[in-house]
């Protein structure tokens, strides 16, 4: 069996490592560099694409033929993500995003595969043997489509992907592998080029159990680069060196500005101010301005503001207070920025742990996981979680959660479906990921049809099993309880199917909004109505005497209406009646709250 390598496929940079004599070692390329810029340059055919540092150097010369930050587009649909990646975007609405470069259209995973191919070759050179298996890391908050696309990128590069591993979990492994005797709860704060993750873990006797994870797959250093670029552009305009038309049309200028912006950002982590220079920007005149760290920090504070909410959410999900954490580990290039470190200190009430190399910890962790899978690292196991709740669409455009977020994976959950009317043969199931109540606010993973044997109403029964594997990827299994027939369900993912099919899917989902779920929605509403009536009765007992007569009468009348609808069988009118009652009880609630608060 060939060795397994660990790969950090980053937005900005990528790395590859392998286990040697029980230690994770990162491989250097032919130039002796470990960090490979995740940049691909497409020269005029028939020359083949150039990857890494060489492509990076060509970016300023041929910006339109050079792709970067492609990770922000992987697994995305057109219209979902506006990230700038250098070349023009293509693809049709509802379908996957494509890149128009090098004379054809590329899927993001095809471009990522070129980066992976280079890493594979580097590892082969370092190891002196063929490499065909890999662990590849992804942001913990990647959804199913993004994970699957990453998996395909690996396959396209000729790698058997043994594991899709979450980046903060990988970093925790790199941190914790030297501390296997300790028992501690830690947080990993991972702010990279394009994504942010915060994971809370418990380390105990070689078990790395993730307790919660939160993140944002469109928040990273790239976004700050954009802000600095804007600052430069505003300066160019103020100096009369460029106007909107030139900025839009001049790819070379954009590439130069981007380079300066990134450079300024990096240098301001160490010095208080930098000069930003663009010599002969309009042929004769030059641009020159000073950017101070304070100015950069003002931009960064706005860009990274959402980080705070994610951290607090992750702690709340783990049911921990900041002071219960043993350490907050920083990884990702952006955590070099002093402001980011101050934010972390403020949020968690402690200085962050900077023991890990922010660029390398994730790759080292991926390599350790490769070691776990190949047996060279023993007595260590990662118990990771699924970052997003998995559910299906139910009546009324609501999402019904089947596997809640932060469930330890691999996990499975079953759901039973039955025919709503006699002879019904098909039922469409729409699978979703996300935390919002409404279907439209969540990610659609795809849809599939369940087949029923011809039967009287509610007699055909099909059990569906939803499994999330150790990669965080969903598998669906359907089993007819009468015939015992079992089959793996192939989901028509909106990212894979043709445009026509997507349109049809959209129409369908609008037309038959799960009539079969009607009954269940009603049962749920009925249960809620009991809670509501119980609350109102209690409230009347406590403070009913203080209500105005007309208020009391209206409440009594609406309570009867709720009771009647609760006996009727349709969820719509019941929900309306409940809403009306809820509304009418506001004065009562106010009285109760007054009572509860006592005299002020």
């Amino acid at each position, binding site marked *: 069996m060939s060795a397994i390598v660990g790969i950090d496929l980053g937005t900005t940079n990528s790395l590859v490592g392998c286990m040697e004599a029980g230690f994770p070692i990162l491989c250097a390329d032919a130039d002796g560099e470990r960090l490979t810029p995740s940049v691909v340059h497409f020269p005029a055919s028939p020359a083949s694409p150039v990857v890494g540092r060489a492509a990076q150097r060509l970016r300023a010369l041929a910006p339109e033929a050079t792709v970067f930050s492609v990770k922000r587009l992987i697994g995305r649909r057109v219209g979902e993500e506006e990230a700038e990646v250098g070349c023009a975007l293509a693809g049709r609405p509802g379908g996957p995003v494509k890149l128009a470069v090098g004379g054809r259209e590329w899927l993001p995973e095809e471009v990522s595969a070129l980066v992976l191919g280079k890493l594979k070759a580097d590892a082969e050179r370092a190891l002196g043997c063929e490499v065909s298996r890999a662990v590849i890391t992804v942001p913990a908050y990647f959804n199913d489509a993004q994970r699957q696309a990453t998996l395909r990128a690996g396959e396209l590069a000729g790698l058997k992907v043994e594991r899709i591993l979450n980046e903060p979990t990988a970093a925790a492994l790199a941190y914790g592998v030297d501390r296997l005797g300790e028992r501690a709860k830690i947080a990993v704060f991972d702010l990279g080029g394009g994504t942010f993750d915060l994971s809370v873990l418990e380390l*105990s*006797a*070689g*078990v790395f*159990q993730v307790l919660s994870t939160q993140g944002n797959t469109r928040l990273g250093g790239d976004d700050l680069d954009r802000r600095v670029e804007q600052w430069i552009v505003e300066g160019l305009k103020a100096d009369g060196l460029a106007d909107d038309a030139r900025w839009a049309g001049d790819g070379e200028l954009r590439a130069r500005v981007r380079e300066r912006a990134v450079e300024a950002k990096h240098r301001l982590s160490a010095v208080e101010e930098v000069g930003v220079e663009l010599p002969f920007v309009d042929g004769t005149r030059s641009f020159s301005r000073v950017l101070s760290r304070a100015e950069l920090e003002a931009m960064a504070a706005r860009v990274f503001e959402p980080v*705070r*909410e994610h951290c*607090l*959410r992750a702690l*709340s999900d783990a*049911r921990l207070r900041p002071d219960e954490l043993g350490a907050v580990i920083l990884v990702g290039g952006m955590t070099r920025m002093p402001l980011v470190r101050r934010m972390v200190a403020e949020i968690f009430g402690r200085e962050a742990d900077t023991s890990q190399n922010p660029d390398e910890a994730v790759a080292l962790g991926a390599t350790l996981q490769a070691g*776990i*899978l190949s047996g060279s690292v023993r*007595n260590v*196991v*990662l*118990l990771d979680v699924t970052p997003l709740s998995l559910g299906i669409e139910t009546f009324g455009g609501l999402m019904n959660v089947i596997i809640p977020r932060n*469930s*330890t994976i*691999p*996990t*499975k959950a079953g759901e039973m479906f039955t025919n709503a009317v006699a002879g019904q043969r098909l039922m469409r199931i729409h699978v979703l990921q996300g935390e919002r109540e409404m279907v439209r606010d969540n990610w659609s993973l795809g849809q599939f049809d369940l087949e029923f044997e011809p039967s009287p109403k509610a007699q055909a029964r099909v059990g569906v099993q939803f*499994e999330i*594997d*150790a990669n965080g990827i969903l598998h669906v299994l359907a089993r007819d309880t009468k015939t015992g027939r079992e089959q793996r369900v192939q989901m028509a993912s909106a990212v894979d199917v043709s445009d026509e099919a997507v349109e049809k899917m959209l129409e369908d989902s609008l037309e038959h909004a799960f009539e079969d779920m009607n009954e269940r929605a009603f049962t749920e509403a009925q*249960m809620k109505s*009991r809670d509501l009536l*119980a*609350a109102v009765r*209690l*409230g009347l007992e*406590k403070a009913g005497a203080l209500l105005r007569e007309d208020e009391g009468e209206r409440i009594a009348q609406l309570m009867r209406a709720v009771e009647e609808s609760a006996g009727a069988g349709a969820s719509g009118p019941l929900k309306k009646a409940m809403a009306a009652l809820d509304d009418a009880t*506001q004065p009562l*609630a*106010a009285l*109760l*709250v007054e009572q*509860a*608060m006592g005299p002020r």
Partner: protein
Amino acid sequence: MPDYFALLGVDRRPWMDVAALRERFQQGAARLHPDAGGDAGRFAEWNEAWRVLSAPALRLRHLMELEGVAAASMGSGVPAGLADGFLQMAGLSREHAGYLERRGAATGAMARALLAEEAAGLRARWAALGGVLERAAAAAGERLRGIDARWAEAGGGGWDGLSALQRELALLDRWEEQVRGARLELSF
């Protein structure tokens, strides 16, 4: 139906030392995880057993199902001892929702600053309610230990009050989540 007590190899009892159970879960998980050569399906069951047994309300429900004890009927309403908390929760939730709506509509720092006092008030009240719930949960935990002791004496079958307690614990869980969620929303 699977017997999660048997699966995790612990006594079938109402009360459980969750810290010890966690250790047991983690050790087993290290053996059963697919990375250690285990089967994903069996790991998922082990996982589920831990999830159920570590949460008192879910554990009691599972115990009642295994023992064939009827669940308290849904119609029985809010247990008498929790009525006050229930009312406070309902009123405060409504105010909280109103506040969030105003906060969402508030554009500009001034508008938000005008809401700060309201937020501080809500925070204090949620914290107080959280304290009430914590005490209620502690009291419910005491009762659980009492039932557990009787259970041990009777060699199983001492389930007087078990189903009412189960319902109470389930309610307290739901409220705890609600209070935690509200306090989180007020923290940013």
